[in-house]
């Protein structure tokens, strides 16, 4: 199953892919391109990835999640050029109980941010461009570990 896509992510399709008559609780998360980052006005951005590893890492994250909670999981991350308001990442988790659905959904997005090799180049309103480094102070990123600390994160 491809976790990366260069096509728009459809929230309804993602939800439907995990729905079943057995599971009554669906928790989901969507990361959407914002018009600002670290105080700068963003026009658009470009996601690139180490494709083979990103797929493998997403598969590991999903497998670990399925081993830990009784859930169904769908995960998509978009790559390529994105505009403001486009969905960059979509996660849907279905479970019989909402505790598991919420916990598993939160786990997946945290691990995606921490482990999946994807990079983001932002184009700003002032015409400049920059690779986003969430480990840098003032970057506005939340919960991202420093690049040294993250070494061997997937081991």
């Amino acid at each position: 199953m491809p976790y990366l896509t260069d096509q728009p992510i459809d929230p309804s399709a993602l939800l439907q892919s995990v729905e079943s008559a057995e599971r009554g609780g669906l928790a989901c998360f969507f990361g959407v391109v914002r018009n600002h980052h670290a105080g700068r006005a963003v026009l658009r951005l470009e996601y690139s990835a180490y494709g083979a590893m990103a797929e493998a890492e997403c598969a590991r994250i999903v497998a670990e999640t399925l081993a830990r909670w009784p859930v169904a999981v769908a995960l998509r991350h978009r790559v390529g050029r994105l505009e403001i308001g486009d969905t960059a990442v979509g996660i849907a988790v279905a479970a019989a109980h909402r505790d598991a659905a919420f916990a598993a959904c939160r786990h997946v997005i945290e691990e995606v941010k921490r482990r999946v090799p994807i990079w983001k180049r932002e184009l700003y309103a002032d015409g400049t461009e920059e690779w986003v480094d969430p480990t840098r102070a003032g970057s506005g990123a939340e919960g991202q570990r420093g690049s040294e600390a993250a070494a061997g994160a997937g081991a």
Partner: protein
Amino acid sequence: MAITADRHTTIRVLLFASYAERLGRELLELSVPPDTTVGQVLELVREMPGGDQLPRHPLCALNLAHVGSDARVGPGDELAILPPLAGG
């Protein structure tokens, strides 16, 4: 087939995003002694033109999985040096 201490191993080193820009390339082929560690490969890369712009301890992945700098590389391995991740 006898393995000798001076037999070298060829590995592929992948660079991405800002690191690829700093070194001006996305792929290196390196020949290293057996039992070379990821940290030792990083030292070699940092000695190349533009390599001093890489951090001393970047994220690394060996054959599509995150590794620490003490992991050892083997014949045909693919070592990726990863700029700070920004997905999600």
